[in-house]
């Protein structure tokens, strides 16, 4: 049973921004993550600012050059069902479909999925951990079977989103509206790694709202996919996953590669080593095997999550082979 909060239904984005500047204000889009966090006393909230009714932030639009703009409040189910998304960016449809359950996809939004809070059991549980402003990361000496093998500096959460790695791999941009106006943030720059600040997940400042996610035109030869492995076959976050966006020319040579992992790092984890291995190569068995090897080369598993090394490698190899 959640604590008391004041509540406002924003009638416009400007109103929402105004209310969100208040101390202790939190945004309510689909509400699935916010209410779960409040239910578990993860953080306190003074004011819930609901933007769920802001129609202009819903839906998928295509602009002249083929750019696809997805309103941040578009439900994940609508993202997964959109014919343009399915045809041009199958990875995004797959990722949206891999989230939670039908109910959560009807309710949860694309913007919310990108901005959601981590699922680390110390963070969600009654532990004053570093991400909550406390002194330490309990995962270091505790049970870290679900935690990061990359980029865990002082906090070892994994980023829970399925869509964010895909958006990152596809070179998407978040449009952010705030008190100072509107800015565009490439997804690659949107997430804050714990080495910079373990108490925040995104670069959003007080009063800022993601209004739109912008996908560049797919161009020729784009092949994309998203695959995650989870502890049960539905309704679960990634133990490890990979988003692939490869531009492959007519002779089968990879011209450009976007490779971003889920479930293994505090932010969607772009793997430059795998991208380098793939670029300029055909997806032969040898290349795929080498990509699998370099994918985990710099992994730093903790005591209980060593399985993530072979698992990630296995997923990378399997998905690359499937795209070949």
């Amino acid at each position, binding site marked *: 049973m*959640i604590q008391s909060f004041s*509540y406002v239904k924003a009638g416009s984005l400007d109103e929402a921004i105004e209310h969100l500047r208040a101390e202790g204000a939190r945004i309510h889009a689909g509400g*699935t993550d916010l209410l*779960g966090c409040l239910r578990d006393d993860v953080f306190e909230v*003074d*004011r819930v600012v*609901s933007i769920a009714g802001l129609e202009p932030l819903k839906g998928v639009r295509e602009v002249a050059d083929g750019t696809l703009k997805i309103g941040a409040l578009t439900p994940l189910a609508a993202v997964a069902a959109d014919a343009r998304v399915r045809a041009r960016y199958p990875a995004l449809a797959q990722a949206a479909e891999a989230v*939670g359950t039908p109910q*959560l996809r009807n309710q949860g939004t694309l913007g919310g999925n990108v901005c959601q809070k981590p699922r680390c059991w110390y963070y969600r549980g009654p532990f004053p951990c570093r991400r909550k402003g406390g002194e330490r990361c309990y995962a270091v000496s505790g049970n870290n079977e679900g935690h990061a093998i990359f980029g865990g500096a002082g906090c070892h959460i994994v980023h829970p989103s399925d869509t964010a790695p895909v958006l990152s791999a596809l070179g998407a941009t978040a449009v952010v509206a705030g008190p100072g106006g509107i800015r565009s943030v490439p997804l690659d720059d949107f997430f804050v790694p714990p080495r910079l600040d373990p108490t925040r997940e995104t670069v959003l400042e007080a009063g800022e709202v993601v209004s739109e996610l912008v996908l560049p035109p797919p161009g020729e030869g784009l092949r994309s996919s998203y695959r995650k492995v989870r502890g049960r076959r539905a309704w679960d976050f990634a133990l490890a996953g990979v988003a692939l966006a490869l531009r492959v020319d007519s002779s089968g040579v990879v011209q450009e590669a976007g490779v971003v992992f889920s479930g293994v790092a505090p932010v969607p984890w772009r793997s430059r080593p795998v991208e380098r291995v793939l670029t300029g190569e055909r997806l032969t068995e040898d290349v795929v095997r080498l990509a699998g090897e370099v994918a985990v080369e710099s992994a730093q598993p903790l005591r209980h999550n060593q399985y993530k090394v072979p698992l990630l490698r296995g997923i990378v190899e399997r998905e690359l082979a499937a795209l070949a």
Partner: protein
Amino acid sequence: MPASNPDDPRGARGVSRRGFLSSMGVGAVSVALPAPLTAGPLAGADLIEAGDLTPVALNVNERVYRVLVEPRWSLLYTLREELGLTAAKEGCGRGECGACTVLMDGVPRYSCLTLATEAEGSSVTTLEGIMEGEELGPTQQAFAEEDAFQCGYCTPGQIVAAEGLLRVNPHPSPEEIRAGMSGNLCRCGAYAHIFRAVERAAAVGAGRGGAS
């Protein structure tokens, strides 16, 4: 124990305070609460203070209920404890089991993760709402015939989820049924029978012609 008198669903929006108070006579539910009423109906960017009760008009099963809610009250709590619509169940209170599944504008979602205030302006359908009077709807009938439950506690959520699935996909494949039902836990483990029930419901055309 309905909270107040149902009336025309068209009255869902723009409830005036006067209109609300005039219906309080039969509203045994909320009047006992001592917190102050907010000044006006919920609209625009009016801030509702923490702990205050605010009137909302909820369109549930094609009837409008006017109730006083705290901002933090879930739709599930409001349905069950304030409106007396107890078919939707609480299993976890945080979107981890699906027993609270209702349709909002025809689409299944978790009423425990939905604030009552957020449901205003939508049409909410609970298991009670897919009955045809006292007769079972076709999806319910299929669940009964296939013995698609044991203790029955998750069943209202399962049936509403199935109804929602069939409304968008009247002829689901077996894999689509499994995926479509994956947001509702059944600890008794009646899944195998639930799959058959959804198949049977699809075969008799459940979901088609459903409201909203």
